[in-house]
């Protein structure tokens, strides 16, 4: 099997997630080539194989029209059986453009390989779907963190420069940095997070109260931050912070993939949720099947009395 792996370059840096693409290819024992719009003078992916490199100074970090055309040229040369991206803001944006052009099946957010077939989540990770492409070529995007190399990536690529038409209909104007300031959750030993299950903004005080009783900080999942019940600098998950405290208490958090990615390395996880099937159960050491509005006041009071 032949794979073309698509690496990413953002804010003048090669992103580390190319190693996850290599780990995935390793599961198939595939022969690999890589594609990158990056900087040949800077750090390159560590692997022994062909690296099709387009110059970021010409083609930009985000220019989907140009990147698609460059990739199509490389695909025509390499004729891979599979083209592999990370399921990232770059990958989920570019992969369907390529899939539509090539009339190739696209499999989004692969979490596992089962007997050579790709497995993806469905319904907020409550279900898993095993899929198969109908044609000769498949495009896959991999869930962040689903595949990892046992050993550090090694080797030097054989660089093949690629060029093409750099025009694009979407103009990149600039980056906006993450909001910082105030509390730094990543330094906290205990984090108690609020999810959609808190129900209303007044109940954030219950979550903050438990955090205080445990000597920690409170955080939140994305819906709670989107609703502006909690500030963005307390958001845990893919688009917020990645944390690994000694204790993580998830209150009313169902456990969407994006949230789990931000907290699954916590040492000890307690879930408090009325739905015992919630996917947060996959990473919980203790699962209290309870309404947080009833449990949190009692738990906080008992902790304060210790």
């Amino acid at each position, binding site marked *: 099997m032949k794979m073309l792996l698509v690496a990413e370059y953002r804010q003048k840096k090669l992103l580390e997630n190319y190693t996850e693409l290599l780990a995935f290819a390793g599961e198939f024992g595939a022969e690999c080539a890589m594609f990158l719009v990056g900087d040949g003078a800077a750090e390159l992916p560590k692997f022994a194989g062909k690296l099709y490199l387009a110059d970021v100074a010409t083609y930009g970090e985000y220019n989907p029209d140009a990147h698609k055309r460059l990739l199509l040229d490389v695909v025509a040369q390499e004729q891979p059986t599979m083209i592999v991206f990370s399921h990232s803001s770059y990958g989920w944006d570019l992969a369907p453009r390529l899939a539509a052009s090539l009339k190739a099946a696209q499999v989004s957010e692969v979490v596992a390989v089962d007997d050579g077939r790709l497995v993806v989540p469905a319904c907020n990770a409550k279900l898993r779907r095993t899929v198969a492409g109908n044609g000769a070529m498949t495009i896959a995007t991999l869930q962040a963190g689903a595949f990892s190399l046992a050993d550090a990536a090694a080797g030097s690529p054989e660089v093949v420069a690629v060029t093409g038409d750099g025009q694009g209909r979407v103009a990149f104007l600039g980056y906006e940095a993450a909001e910082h300031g105030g509390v730094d959750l990543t330094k906290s030993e205990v984090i108690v997070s609020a999810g959609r299950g808190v129900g209303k903004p007044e109940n954030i005080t219950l979550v903050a109260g438990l955090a205080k009783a445990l000597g920690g900080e409170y955080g939140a999942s994305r819906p709670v931050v989107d609703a502006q019940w909690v500030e963005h600098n307390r958001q845990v998950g893919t*688009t917020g912070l990645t944390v690994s405290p000694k204790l993580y208490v998830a209150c009313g958090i169902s456990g969407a993939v994006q949230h789990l990615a931000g907290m699954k390395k916590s040492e000890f996880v307690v879930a408090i949720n009325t739905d015992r099937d919630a996917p947060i159960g996959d990473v919980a050491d203790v699962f209290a099947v309870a309404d947080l509005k009833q449990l949190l006041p009692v738990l906080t009071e*008992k902790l304060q009395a210790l």
Partner: protein
Amino acid sequence: MKLLVCIKQVPDMESKFKIDADGVWYDRGDLAWRMNEYDEYAVEQAVQVKEATGADLTVLCIGPDQVKETMKKALAMGCDRGVHIADDRSHLRDPFQIASLIAAFAKDKGFDLIFTGMQSQDRGSGQVGVMTAELLSLPAVTTIVGFALAGNTITVKRELEGGVKATVEATLPALVTCQLGLNTPRYPTLPNIMKAKKKELLTVAAADLSPADGLLKTVKLTFPEKKGGGVFLEGDVGEVADRLIRILKEKTSLLA
């Protein structure tokens, strides 16, 4: 100006799912249905553009008859008319086929701006919007969390990882896929719900739009294996609290 917003009806994600008899999708009986959450942001943004510019706004939805209930919500939020692409098999179609249906409907309508959610909550492929744009040869921007329209130009913010955003610009016609948090979707008011009942709701059979052949099929749908083997605590909240504190004392160094 002409606007199109594409929505999907999905089950409430808190539902207890069962696998259907064919083993390739969830059982669609006994579920509460609602508008895909991402699409609520798409509808809200489209309605805001309509209100600011006086544009004409069509909402499109593919599926069996029951999706009309969800379309009524979009009409009550402010869409001018609905186009229902009737398709009892839509849950078995892959993203490319769904995109081909939307593109077949939209191709000669002259839409200036098309809004979609960035993904659906049930399939979560995140492909339909971008593929639709590709089939219509439109520029597309995905995962937007900020939107501004000035004249013929949209300036939008894409959400990247770790809280970083990228600002990009495109000229109309264009397609955008909307991320959660883009705006605050409105709740339809009672008068608007009543008005929505009188709005035009056109039905087109999917077969009349000649959907493309599928590229991808589901082999099986399964429940994930439960990992971790965590302890479940249930019952009286006082007892649950006591047991939880005992466990935290044993397993962590935090309550010593």
